[in-house]
């Protein structure tokens, strides 16, 4: 019975009662959303209070190095016999801070940047976009080096460094979307209602510009966590032995032949976080847009 096809057009049903489709769809969606929120909650908890889950992420035990998952070490141990589970849990703070922090910062800065460029007149536009070009042209690591050179190395500064190199991307997307949206009939309509410019921007322009930015942000969270690790590696952030997912993942590369689990667990942690943020984020976005999920 296909009263509704996926192509968006509707077939026709014989005179038979058709079950409520979206009700079913909603039921399908719910558990996913629940699981995702639950996982994120755990991650946040781990970031705030890792000792709730596991202690001693840095306790070495060289004799029991690179043991696969077992009853004693659920996720196994790493090259120094440290408990991978404890390290994944304790790694949440830095990773999430860098991933979310950098993305949020880049999102905010980039959105304002792009809005200013597209709404602020031609001179400002040229100026801001040339600056964005320069920023984009600088290799991300170089940029990060500069930022860290100025601010000094720390987790927060890593986030700032990454944000600085990401924000021009957000700015460009924002700008183009805004250029289209600001000519839309509803923006003109709002203007002609006498709505204040700032309100027009906040109520009509921004919300309609946001969706691609949301997507961009979601997909950036994961890459930020990874970039964060390579910056740590360059000595620009939290240093070993303090655990962090990205560097755990890159270190695991050396032990590829011996122990897969070393890469698997931090990898899963990153990916799950990103996907769950994606799921929850989409739900929020859909609600916000008043669209059907």
């Amino acid at each position, binding site marked *: 019975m296909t009263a509704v096809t996926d192509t968006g057009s509707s077939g026709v049903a014989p005179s038979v009662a058709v079950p409520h489709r979206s009700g079913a769809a909603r039921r399908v969606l719910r558990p996913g959303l629940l699981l995702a929120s639950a996982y994120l909650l755990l991650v946040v908890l781990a970031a705030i209070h890792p000792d709730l889950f596991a202690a001693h992420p840095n306790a070495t035990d060289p004799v029991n190095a690179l043991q696969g998952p077992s009853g004693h070490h659920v996720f196994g141990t790493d090259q120094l016999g440290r408990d991978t589970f404890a390290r994944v849990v304790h790694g949440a703070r830095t990773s999430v801070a860098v991933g979310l922090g950098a993305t949020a910062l880049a999102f905010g800065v980039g959105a304002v940047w792009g809005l200013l460029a597209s709404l602020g007149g031609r001179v400002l536009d040229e100026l801001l976009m040339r600056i964005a070009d320069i920023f984009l042209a600088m*290799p991300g690591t170089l940029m990060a080096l500069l930022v860290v050179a100025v601010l000094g190395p720390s987790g927060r500064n890593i986030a700032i460094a990454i944000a600085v190199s990401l924000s021009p991307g957000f700015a460009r997307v924002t700008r183009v979307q805004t*250029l289209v949206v600001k000519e839309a009939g509803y923006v003109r309509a709002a203007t002609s209602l006498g709505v204040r410019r700032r309100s027009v921007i906040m109520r009509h322009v921004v919300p309609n510009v946001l969706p691609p930015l949301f997507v961009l942000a979601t997909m950036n969270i994961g890459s930020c966590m990874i970039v964060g690790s390579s910056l740590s590696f360059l000595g620009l952030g939290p240093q070993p032995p303090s655990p962090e997912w990205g560097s755990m993942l890159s270190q695991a590369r050396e032990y590829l032949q011996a122990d897969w689990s070393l*890469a698997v667990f931090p*990898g899963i942690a990153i990916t799950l976080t990103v996907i769950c943020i994606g799921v929850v984020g989409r739900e929020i976005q859909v609600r916000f847009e008043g669209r059907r999920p």
Partner: protein
Amino acid sequence: MLPGDPARLIAGSGTLNSASPQVLRLINHQYGFDRPLIDQYGHFLGQLAHGRFGTSYQLNQPVTKVILDQLWATVTVAVGAAVLGFVLALVLALTTAGRPKARAVSSAIELLLVSTPSFWVGILLLSLFSFRLHLFPVLGNEGVQSLVLPWVTMALPIGGALALVMREGVERALDEPFVLTVRARGATQRRVLLRHVLRHALLPVLTLSGWVLGQLLGGVVVVEAVFARAGIGQITLTAVDGRDFPVVTGVVMLAATTFVVINTAVDLLDRVVDPRLRAVAR
């Protein structure tokens, strides 16, 4: 520039100290490090303005030659990967847009791709297709054979990211009233997507090309290392390792130029894609 005595950096990469003082003095002189800093900088700019990037400290060759020699190898990898990534994104976005279940699965995979470091992807592909199945060789810069895995490695994260953004655009465009008319004309779903909706979704994707380029630049470094290919990435690694500033500068200039060219092109393309943008006084 990084702190430290440049001459020492250039001369010493073996052990702690190995170049003799005479050698250091010579290097200092040859590269003008013995002149006042402002002089050096001015000279450097002057050289740049004339398109001279100077000579590689390490390779004793003009930087332009060093880069040009390797450019083609890198361009084939990067362009191929970009095209492949774009096609991948197209396919993913268009086949899954507006289908809640397919979209959920596909976007999970895309997020996975985006958040997996490319060295992992590369190593996994190599292990499977080269080491296990012997389908593609590790060695050799020649032929499409050796390009397949590097392309795929770089294309996967790019494709994943673009697919995410593109699908969002496609779904928004599918909601627009004109789609109904297009369907009423008997257009196939494929036509609706390719001829109409895709264009609407292209705008944010185009804008991301700067990001794609950045990905590509970062990607070649990893991919060339993992797949043992010669190219700009390898030069950059070696140059950064050996503090070969002229080469590093050359590579940065190359990247910057490419960025500016691409962004300018994108600004123009935007207006081709969306005629309404032409009206916007710019």
